[in-house]
Each structure stands twice: as C-alpha cells, then as structure tokens.
C-alpha cells in the first residue's frame, strides 16, 4: 500500500504542478502583436512585472491638440499570435498535458461509473417501483 502511495505522489505531483507553474508565469504565452509600438509596450510590460504599479494612463487632457499628442493612436489591430519556437512549444506541451489529463480522468471516471451501475443493478433496481414514489422533495415541490 505504502509503495503505491509513494508512486502515485511521484507521478501526480509533477503532472499537476508543472503545467500550473508554467501557466502561472506572466510570460507564459504572451500574444505577439503586429504593431511595432505594441510589441515594444508588450516587451516592456514583460520586463517589468505587471504587479508593479504601472504609471497611471495620462489623464484626459483639457485641450484636444494636447491630448492628440499625448496618446499614441493605435493604427493596427491587435492580433494574438505565437511567435518563436518557445511559445509554440509551450502551447503544444499544454495541449498534450491537457488531453492526457482528460484521458486519465475519464479512465478513472469510467471505472467509477461501472461500479456505480453495478451496485445499482445488484441492490436497488426495482423496476416495479415508480421512481417518484416517496420523493422526499415532494412537499417542497408540491406534487
């Protein structure tokens, strides 16, 4: 028993924690943007952890001409895309982990379902009895 438990922990801890750790990093899989200014902004944001208070966006200036100068108008759509081998690999690794985990969980769920069905058939299956007889919610639902 003890051996199995240790083995279980050895497998499950990395399986669960590794992707979480990867995802938790702000630089996980940042989107890349077409616009140059946007790329620079994104890079700057990555270099400085986002938790640090960012300088507040320039307050709306009273006069229009001033406002126009202050804000750099975006001229291109922001299009998320993966760039570089590192980002692409990260996504593929995540996909593999995701579907592998789903497969594992479904495998165990199926065992559980089979067991539940077996117990039900062995013990409780009484076709004559109406499923709604002595329904405990009846007084609540009023039927």
């Amino acid at each position, binding site marked *: 028993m003890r051996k199995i438990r240790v083995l279980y922990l050895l497998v499950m801890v990395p399986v669960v924690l590794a992707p979480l750790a990867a*995802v938790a*990093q*702000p630089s*996980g*899989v*940042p*989107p890349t*943007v077409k616009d140059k200014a*946007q790329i620079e*902004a*994104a890079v700057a*944001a990555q270099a400085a952890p*986002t938790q640090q208070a*960012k300088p507040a*966006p320039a307050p*709306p200036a009273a006069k229009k001409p001033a406002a126009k100068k202050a804000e750099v108008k*975006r*001229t*291109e*759509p*922001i*299009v*998320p895309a993966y760039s570089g081998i590192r980002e692409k690999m990260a*996504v593929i690794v*995540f*996909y593999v982990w*995701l*579907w592998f985990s*789903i497969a594992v*969980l*479904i495998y165990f*769920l*199926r065992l*559980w*379902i089979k067991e*539940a*069905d077996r117990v*039900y058939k062995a013990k*409780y299956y009484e*076709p004559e009895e109406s*499923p*709604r007889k*002595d*329904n*405990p*919610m009846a007084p*609540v*639902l*009023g*039927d």
Partner: protein
Amino acid sequence: MKIDMKKLAAWFDDRLALTPIFKYMTKKEVPQHEHSFWYYTGSSILLFLFIQIVTGIMLALYYQPTLEGATDSIGRIMTELPLGWLIRSVHSWSSTFMIAFVMIHLLAIWFTKSYRKPREATWMTGMMLLVVSMVFGFTGYLLPWDDLSLSATKVGTNIPMAIPVVGKWVTQFLRGGGDVTGDTLTRFYLFHVCILPLVIFAILAVHILLVQKEGMSVPLKDEIAKKKVPALPFWPNFILREVVIWLVLLGVLLTISLAFAPSLELTADLMAPAPEGVKPEWYFLFLFQTLKIFPANMGPVTGEFVAVVLILIAVVAIFFLPFIDNKPEGKKGKLIQYLGVAGLIYAIVFSIWSLL
C-alpha cells in the same frame, strides 16, 4: 481544539435540510433510451454559463465601459495582463459554445417533443432563456467598441424602429437617446454584467425547478405504449456521466481558445464612415440575412416592417409551440417535426448565404 466533523455536518444538515436534497438526488431517475444523449445538453449549457461568469468577472476587473477607455482597456488586458488574451478568448469562445448548446438543447427537445404536457412551462421558460442568452451576446458584442461592433450595434438597435410608435421607444431605450453614443456603451455594459445575470438566474431557477418537478421525459412512443423505460439514478450514475462530458467540452473549449484568440480592431469613431463587412455575431446571421432579402418598400409599408413582423410572429409561435402541438402523436405533430427540420435548414442556409 478538535472539531467534530460529524456534529458540524449534522448542524448544517439540520439548518439547510441537506438530507432530503441528497435523498432526492439519489431517488431522481433519468430514463435510458436511444435519445437519452440529449439529456446532457442542459448541463452542458450550465458548464458554459459558469465559465462565462468566472471569466466575465475577471475581465470586468480591468475593463472600462467608457468611450475613451473601452478599446484601450481591452488592448491592455490582451497585451499587458498575464494571460489576459486567453481569458478574453475563453470568454468569447464559451459564449459561442453556450449559445450553440442552447440551440441544440432546444432542437433536441423540439424533435423529441419533450415539451408536451406537462412540460409546457419548462419550454416557455426555456425560450426566455434563449432570448436572454442572445441579448447577452448582443450587448457583449459592443463592449470592445471597435469599428465593426459599433456599426453592428447601430444596425441592430435601429431594427425596432421598423415598427411604428413602440419601435422608437425601444430604440431610444436601447441606445439611451436617439443615436448610439457613449451612453449606449454604458447601458450595454450595465445590461451585460448586472441586469441580464439577474434575469437569467431568476428564469433558470424556475426552469430547473420545473425539470425537477416533472422529472425527465420519456420518448413519446414509450409513453403512448405505457412501456416502462429503464432508468439510472441521477446520483451518482448520471452525474458521473455528465462529468465525463464536461471534461471533454472543457478540453475542446481550451484547445480552440488557445488556437484562435480573438483580435481587437481599431477604436470606433462615431464620425467615421461604416467599415466594410459589418456583420453581427454568427447566431444573428440568419436573421440579418432575412432582413436583407426584403425590398426597401412593399406597398404602403417598408420591407423591414414586414420582415420584423414575420420574425416576431415566428418567435411567438415557437414560444407557444407546446399549445400549437397539442396532439403530438397525430398528423399535426409530424408536420411540426418537419417544420423544425425546415427551420434548421433555413437558419443554416441563410447564415451561410449572409457570409457569401
């Protein structure tokens, strides 16, 4: 201090009446037959609704519903906040999945005729949920405040105007004035994050209570033959199967959201001409195309008026479908089944047509 868990559980049980609820769940049975698969559609919608709420709250932490801030705040979410682009992507894709599953749920119930007596009210609350879900989508579409969403909202909020007298009121209510402005954005945001959630929870509570009250329907032919349909307990046999479906749907959702994250167009300019390719969300396309095929004027009235009235009649008819289809096993019942198929084909063909 050692807490006696058993005592604690008993305390809560006593106060919250948990035992009857659990007992009910084990007593509740879900029939098993060749159409049982559709019983999973309702809970799939619940999964996506839950995801919408979680990701929506996350987005609302940084989104600013103002003319000046809306687009830029979404740009900030996408480029500066950790995995913000993914949160936005999941919110957007999950809305699509939710509406798609609402439609599948509706069609499955249409084709199996589960709306028949005594489930008329379940169907009618369901239609309300469909409308509320679509209004969720419509209001959410404006929030990025980019070129396309602005023009689509102008068109969408103008459609009620086709109806004399009341239409104008509806349009002004939706827009918060005669034109789409910053007030419209504020209003749509309020609808999207406050009013509609309250409404959807209220209706959903009734919907689900009614489903519990009546139990799950059995196929029509078994009901007529008075055949006993084998069933499984809801807890744990059925719920475990639901979990399997949830896991798969979650996987599909994440896979698609990661691969196809939505982009952000340029900030809308109230003074700029409409861009090319203005279109609503995919689930409005067939209605959009329906409006398009009517000519500008049809005799004394506008074509738009005729189209809007026809659409309204169809919606009301579907709302009262259980009463129209009062003899589901007869000839009329068959006809209504074919009408459902025709409606589905119509929606698909018109949606594709609108994209050509």
